[in-house]
């Protein structure tokens, strides 16, 4: 259990919480889209500091978690080849494919390397012209532009031994799919701040209006989350459903125009499967025709790998906010970080990993001292955070 005194600015956290407590009159369910936000929420016990009427539902915003099993299997197949240097971000190493992971491939002799940036993989390709160098291109709109630039550079510099295994996903179609689900309980969204740093907010007004849900662009720090919740609850109580930017220090409404232009050049929108959820229309990117030569799936003929996901992993329900991690029968028994059934347990941004790491067995035990509104508190009309 965390206490409000552990916040970076406890006085401000108290004021934000008091305002939320003073505002809410009815039950509301908000979804935080980003896995980084989920970890902040669980780590600081923010869900337990909020009024009981405000429920936070964990969204699908962990790129590692939503990468389909068959893409992991394709990565493992490519990484096992003797002429391949397979480059990845570190958080993919322990994500289970069918029977093994990249960590094991390396222990079996595969040349798997972890890079900080996709440009590092390109440098490795330049230094190893006799090897095929493949970069594992996963991630949301924040990660896609760096990978796009890397493919663009490979083409510009004429580096033939570099390719990208692409599994990029887009947030707005996921929000659309969540809202269309008959079992959807989400009434408002805390949108992922760094996705919006790239994309801006242009995709959200139509979503907010059509589904009548407030969408508040929110950062990752504890106070950012509280401010996002405060603004979303205020809208809901007033019957409003607009897009609000609570992370203005890092998000311009227009996003990053140079990154958007590169995305449009290198990638094109495609349907994509999400692990545990299934195919969501227009929810991903693939390399555009001009860059198709750099597609590792075709270069290594792994397009035929189709893997069925195990039924005992219920991460799909966790990713859609239909199940809390600790409500899964396998949580902590069949499924642990050392022996995960699904990526949500092993990713540093996975919801199951957050519940395991912070030992969250049950919800609802709230320290009274941390939640009681103070008499001296006053409602906040202006945002103190941005």
């Amino acid at each position, binding site marked *: 259990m965390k206490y409000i005194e552990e916040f970076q600015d406890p006085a401000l956290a108290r004021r934000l919480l008091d305002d939320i407590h003073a505002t809410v009159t009815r039950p509301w369910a908000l979804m935080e889209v980003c896995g980084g936000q989920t970890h902040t929420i669980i780590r600081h016990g923010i869900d337990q500091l909020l009024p009981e009427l405000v429920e936070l539902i964990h969204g699908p915003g962990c790129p590692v978690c939503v990468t389909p099993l068959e893409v992991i299997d394709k990565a493992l197949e490519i990484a096992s080849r003797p002429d391949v240097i397979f480059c990845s*971000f570190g958080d993919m190493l*322990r994500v289970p494919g069918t029977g093994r992971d990249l960590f094991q491939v390396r222990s079996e002799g595969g040349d798997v390397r972890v890079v900080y*940036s996709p440009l590092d993989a390109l440098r490795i390709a330049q230094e190893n012209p006799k090897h095929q160098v493949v970069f594992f291109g996963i991630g949301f709109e924040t*990660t896609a532009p760096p990978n796009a630039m890397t493919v663009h550079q490979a083409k510009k510099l004429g580096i033939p031994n570099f390719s990208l295994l692409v599994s990029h996903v887009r947030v707005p179609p996921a929000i659309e799919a969540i809202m269309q689900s008959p079992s959807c309980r989400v009434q408002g969204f805390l949108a992922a701040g*760094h996705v919006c*740093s790239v994309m801006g907010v242009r995709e959200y007004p139509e979503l907010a209006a059509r589904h009548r849900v407030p969408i508040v662009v929110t950062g990752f720090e504890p106070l950012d989350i509280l401010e996002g919740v405060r603004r979303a609850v205020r809208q809901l109580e007033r019957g409003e459903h607009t897009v609000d930017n609570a992370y203005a220090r890092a998000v311009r409404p227009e996003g990053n125009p140079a990154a958007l232009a590169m995305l449009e050049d290198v990638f094109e929108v495609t349907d994509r499967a999400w692990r545990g959820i299934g195919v969501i229309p227009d929810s991903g990117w693939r390399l555009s025709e001009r860059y198709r030569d750099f597609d590792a799936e075709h270069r290594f003929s792994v397009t035929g790998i189709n893997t069925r996901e195990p039924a005992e992993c219920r991460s799909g329900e966790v990713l859609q906010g239909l199940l809390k991690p600790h409500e899964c029968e396998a949580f902590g028994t069949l499924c642990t970080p050392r022996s995960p059934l699904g990526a949500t347990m*092993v990713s540093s941004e996975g919801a199951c990993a957050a519940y395991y*790491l*912070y030992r969250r*067995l049950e919800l609802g035990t709230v320290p009274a001292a941390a939640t009681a509104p103070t008499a001296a508190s006053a409602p906040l009309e202006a945002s103190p955070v941005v």
Partner: protein
Amino acid sequence: MCLAVPGRVLDIGEKDGTRMATVDFGGVQKEVCLEYLPDLQVGEYAIVHVGFALQRLDEESAKQTLELFAQLGMLQEEFGDPWEQAAAAGGDPWPFADDPGPEPEPTPVLAAPQEEVQP
């Protein structure tokens, strides 16, 4: 991986026709591509994700975030040895129902950002 970290530009150069910078993240320095923020200057702060500067950030916000990330051990997660982290993945045995024990407190390995003199 999803998280982006604020950093301060130390110097700017060019590599393979691309604008690159050395960026300091609370003591760790990395090479960062500036193609998406082409007017970023030495001394300024930006949010950096997987080696790319994505959005300018004011100095105060950047320093606060870096300090928080250092306290939470997130800089170590971002810049530490990924093989060691992958090998250590697994945590303690479960369940903790009878004895929840203390919450895990990450050790801040990297120093919080120091006050710096502007150029």
